[in-house]
C-alpha cells in the first residue's frame, strides 16, 4: 500500500475531487496548506507597508491506496490538478506499512476501501 500526497491549486480542488471519484478512489483527506515553489510572487500593500507574498494557497490531498490503485490515484490527481501554469503542484508517493479502519479494526487492504453507501 502507498500513501499518495497531492498538493494542488485551490481552484483545481474540485476537479481533483471529480477525477478521484471517476477513478473510484472514494476515501481521502484534504487540508489547506501554503506552498512555495516557482510561482511568481504577488505584491500587496497595507497602508505604508508593501509586502511580497512568498507563499500561495494550496490544497493537500492525502490518499491511502492499495498498490493496484496507486497509478489511478496519481493520474487522477494529475489530470484534475493540471492547468499548465507554474504552481500546479506536486504528488508524492510514500510507502505505507499498515492501515487500520478505526470503526472495525480491519487492517490494510480492507481498511482503505470505504463501505459503499
Amino acid at each position: 500500500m502507498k500513501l499518495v500526497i497531492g498538493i494542488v491549486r485551490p481552484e483545481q480542488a474540485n476537479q481533483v475531487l471529480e477525477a478521484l471519484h471517476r477513478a473510484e478512489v472514494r476515501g481521502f483527506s484534504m487540508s489547506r496548506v501554503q506552498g512555495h515553489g516557482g510561482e511568481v510572487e504577488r505584491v500587496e500593500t497595507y497602508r505604508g507597508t508593501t509586502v511580497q507574498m512568498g507563499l500561495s494557497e494550496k490544497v493537500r490531498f492525502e490518499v491511502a491506496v492499495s498498490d493496484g490503485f496507486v497509478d489511478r490515484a496519481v493520474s487522477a490527481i494529475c489530470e484534475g490538478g493540471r492547468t499548465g501554469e507554474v504552481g500546479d503542484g506536486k504528488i508524492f508517493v510514500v510507502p505505507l506499512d499498515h492501515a487500520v479502519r478505526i470503526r472495525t479494526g480491519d487492517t490494510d487492504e480492507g481498511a482503505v476501501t470505504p463501505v459503499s453507501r
Partner: protein
Amino acid sequence: MNAGIDTGDTAWMLIATALVLMMTPALGLFYAGLVRSKNTLNTFMMSIAAIAVAAVTWAAVGYSLAFDGGGDLIGGLGNAFMQGVDFAPREGTAIPELVFFAFQATFCIITVALISGAVVERMRFGAFLVFAALWSVLVYAVLAHWAFGGGWLLSGGTLDFAGGVPVEMASGFSALAAAVVVGARKDYGRQALLPHNAVYVLLGAGLLWFGWFGFNGGSGFSTGNNSVLAFTNTLLCPATTLVVWFALDLIRGRKVTAIGAATAIIVGCVLITPAGGYISPGWAMLLGALGAFPSYGIIVWRTRTRVDETLDVLAAHGTAGLFGVLFIGFFAQASWNGVSDGLFYGNASQLLDQFLAVLAAPAYAFVATFVLLKLIGAVMPLRASDREEAMGMDVVQHGEEAYVTGEGAILLLPDDVGKVAVPVADPG
C-alpha cells in the same frame, strides 16, 4: 403637531426605541461569540427569533395586559391587537402612545432574548420559539404590569426606573429555571467549552452599552430630569464596574481579562437600570463599584456547580438587577429624583417597597418559567440528542454553518437532486 405632544421628547423617544431594538441583535452577537463555533448561528438566531415572536405577541396581547388599566395583578384587554393605540399622547407623557407602545415592545423583545443565554448549545430551536411566545405574555407582560403598568408593585411604591423587575430579575431568574429544566450540556463540567470569538463579545458589549443609553435614558419617556440623570448614570456606573472588575480579575488571576471586561459592561448597565433616574451620579458610581462583587462572585461560584446556566444570565442580570433595585431603597434621593428618598435619607419605607420587589419578582419568574418549560417539555423535546449536540446546533437545527469554505460542497440543482454524484469544491 398634536396637542400634548412635545417634538423634543418624541424625537428622543424615537431614537431611544431604535437603540433598544438594536440591542437584541447586539446581544445575539455577544452571545454568539461566547459559544463554540458549531453553535454560532443557533445562538444568534435565538435573539432574532425573540424579535419576531415577541413583537407579534406584544402587539396582540402583551402590551394590553401590561399597560391597559391599573389592575393589581394584570392589565386588561382594552388595547389588545393595538386597539386605541394611536397618535394621542400616552397619559403622563408628551409622546404619542404609538411610540410608547414601540418602546415598551423592544423591552419585551430583549428580555426574551436574554433568557436564551441559559440554554444555548443544546435547546431545540422549535421549543425555544414556543417558549418565547408564551413567556413574553405569561411572565414578561405580568411583571411589566406590576412594575410599570399600574400593578401592585408600582402602586405600592416600589421604584424601578427602567426594568430591574420585568427585564433584569425576570430574565435572570427565568434563566436559572430554564437551565435547571433543560439540563446541562453533555460535556459541561467534563470538558472546556470556550468562547470561539472574543471580538464578537467585545463588540457586542460595546453595542449593548450604546443601546442602553436609550434603554435607561428613554425610561423617563421624555428629555426631562430623570431621563437626563439616568442617561448620565449609564455612563458613570458601568465605568466604575469596569474598574472594579479589572481589580477583581487582577486579584483572582493576576490578569485583566477581555471576556471579563465585556461582562463588567453588562453588569454595570444592569446595576443602573432600576436606579438610573432615582440616585445621584455619586451614588451611581458607588453602585457600580459595590455591585460588581456579587455578580463576580456568582460567576466564579456557578461554574463549580452542576447548573449549566451557560452564559451567566443569573449573575449578570438577575443578581445585578436585584442589587440595583435594593440600592434604590438605600440611596434614592428626592432632591435628585423629585419622587422619593431612601433609607439613607430617612425614608425606611422605600427600602421595604424595594424588598417586596426582590422577593416577588424572582419568585414569580422562576416558578412560572419552571412550570412553563415543564409543560412545553411534556409536549415536545426541549433539547437535541447528544449526537446532535456533538454535531453542533447550526447544522442540526438550521442546516447551515457559520463559516463555510465551500470545499467539497456539491451543488444540488432542483431538477437533478441526487443525480450530481461527485463532490464539487470552490475554496473561498
